[in-house]
């Protein structure tokens, strides 16, 4: 067990989070040394980034979205750690930490002290139940805890040490410092190390991190939060519907120049509006640093996966059909089978949606994200959209056909998807820090 101590602002939390790969060191690197094995590089100054295998972390702020329930938080933490636990096991741990009466409550309604307990339990739970040695990083774990919870924390730390887990704690708490094997004291001018260097007898982990489980946990997390509080759907659908009704009220004749593509443009416009809206997922990931908690476990994978999972999957197809029904009345030129194939360009709008989400996530990665305009980068998505307008125009007036070419519906849809995919790729490759 290692304790990082020092005055406020000395950099304890920054070092702890750098161990988790959340910050790039200006020089040097963070590695996990494995006796008899090649060390695993976690983060270096050149931008290399690997999730720490076998890691659990409790950030100083909760590292969780406050819409999550206590049970969900603990389940998610165990799944992300690659140690999915049965509900009974989680309930037993909650009982021990006197949280069971709050298991179905959202974190938003809990006191700061209770949220701290949840955060610590989420970090240590996978290790308590794991037979494999793990690394646990705790940032000021005793802050805000009552005396009973502090006692429980001490007991848990003892128990984890006994089981051979590695624990790194950033703290001011003398009672925790006293029980540590080594202490690193950080001040503005120097770093001093005391205590014995406890040799690692067994490699703490040899397997690659269970990223697949973490990704599936991320998907479930995003879906559960949206089902509970559908902010994303509502904030996307309202402007889309308003735009649609506005178009319907004004009347297409008043705004159209008579071009065949106008109807296709207006049919797809509400979907475009819906998919370009800033996703609620970004705010969820920003809340109480829950995004950092995910980044610590998923590494760089978080942006590509969350930009896909967090895209507005449900909206483009129904919105396109709704627009078609409301706006195409009175148009006699429409091919009889057009409605049967409108789902195809609408489906391709999802690619644009994923690219838009990735751009929003890229911009949100800036330190002062509110000071830059994502819409400037979003403008690039007008291309794939215009290609879809051309494809929809063809479908509306010629019907669907399956020839491949630059002016056939299928060719245009493929081009649109390829452009959207390139934009998405560029946005997710760009480093987040």
């Amino acid at each position: 067990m290692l304790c990082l101590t020092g005055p406020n602002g000395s950099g304890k939390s920054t070092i702890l989070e750098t161990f988790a790969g959340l910050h790039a060191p200006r020089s040097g690197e963070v590695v996990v040394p494995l006796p008899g094995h090649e060390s695993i590089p976690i983060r270096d100054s050149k931008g290399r980034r690997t999730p720490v295998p076998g890691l659990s972390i409790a950030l100083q702020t909760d590292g969780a979205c406050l819409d999550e329930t206590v049970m969900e938080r603990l389940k998610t933490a165990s799944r992300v750690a690659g140690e999915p636990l049965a509900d009974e096991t989680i309930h037993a741990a909650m009982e021990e930490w006197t949280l069971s009466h709050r298991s179905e409550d959202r974190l938003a309604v809990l006191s700061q002290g209770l949220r701290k307990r949840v955060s610590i339990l989420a970090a240590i739970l996978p290790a308590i139940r794991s037979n494999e040695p793990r690394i646990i990083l705790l940032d000021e774990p005793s802050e805000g805890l009552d005396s009973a919870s502090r006692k429980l924390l001490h007991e848990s730390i003892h128990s984890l040490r006994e089981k051979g887990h590695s624990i790194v704690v950033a703290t001011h708490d003398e009672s925790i410092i006293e029980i540590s094997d080594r202490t690193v004291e950080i001040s503005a001018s120097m770093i001093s190390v005391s205590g014995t260097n406890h040799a690692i007898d067994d490699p703490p982990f040899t397997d690659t991190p269970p990223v697949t489980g973490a990704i599936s946990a991320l998907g479930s997390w995003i879906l559960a939060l949206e089902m509970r509080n559908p902010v994303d759907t509502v904030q996307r659908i309202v402007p889309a519907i308003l735009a649609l009704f506005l178009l319907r009220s004004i009347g297409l004749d008043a705004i159209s120049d008579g071009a065949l593509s106008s109807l296709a443009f207006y049919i797809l416009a509400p979907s475009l509006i819906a998919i370009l809206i800033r996703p609620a997922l970004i705010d969820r990931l920003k809340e109480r640093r829950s995004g950092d908690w995910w980044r610590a476990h998923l590494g760089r994978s978080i942006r590509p996966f969350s930009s896909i999972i967090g895209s507005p999957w449900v909206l483009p197809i129904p919105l396109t059909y709704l627009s078609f029904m409301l706006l195409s009345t009175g148009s006699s030129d429409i091919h009889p089978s057009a409605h049967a194939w409108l789902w195809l360009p609408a489906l391709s709008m999802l690619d644009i949606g994923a690219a838009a989400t990735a751009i929003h996530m890229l911009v949100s990665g800036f330190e002062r994200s509110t000071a830059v305009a994502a819409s400037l980068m979003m403008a690039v998505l007008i291309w794939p959209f215009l290609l879809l307008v051309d494809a929809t125009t063809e479908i509306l007036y010629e019907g669907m056909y399956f020839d491949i070419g630059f002016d056939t519906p299928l060719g245009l849809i493929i081009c649109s998807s390829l452009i959207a995919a390139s934009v998405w790729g560029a946005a997710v490759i760009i480093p987040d820090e």
Partner: protein
Amino acid sequence: MARIPAQAIALLALGSGGLVATIFLGITWAPDVNPSQWRAPAAYRIIFLHVPFAWTSFLAFSMLFWGSLTWYLRRTERSWRLIQSGSDLGLLFGIGVITSGPIWGMAEWGVPWDWADLRLNTFALLTALALFIVMARRSQPDHDSTRDTIAAVGLFGFILVPITALATTLYQKRHPGVVIIESEESGLDPAIRTVMLIGFLSMTLLFIGFAIISDKLYSSEAEIELNLKTLDEVKGGE
């Protein structure tokens, strides 16, 4: 004290003079184009500014992309200055392109903007990208991580530049072709070609002058920032 280099002032003077001459010759000397082929045969004269603007914005965007690339490879202050100057100049000359273009478009096509024109839209997007980078640079703390992200956005433009070039020939709808290169075949009047070349040369001189001044400005800024940081440390140690 940092001074504006004399050669930059000379280049700006030459470029500005050339630009005035371009406008004057374009209006008084260059003949009207064939009215049967053009809807607004007199309005075409804006291309004497529009096309050189497009050329210099290409130079600026190339500077931005080269800076972005070398920032990733070497992370030098020089690369960062290229990004700074490239984005500023890309924005400046890009605005020249996307404002002069719609004026001509309105006269010639009857609409200021053609969403089907890939090259027109690419220029608008490149300019939007330059604006994004300028805003991000000015608003964000100047850390390596911020520079990494901005450089990556600059690299993203690499995708757009070749598309713009290809769009000239592959996916051209309303937008005219490459006037200078195709002039032999298209029978462009020698007077028009001469004025166009003067415009090109003048705008290029202006671009080089601005680039030198911008580089000087940003290197001086970096020096001042370094001195301020040293001062912070000295004051902090008191």
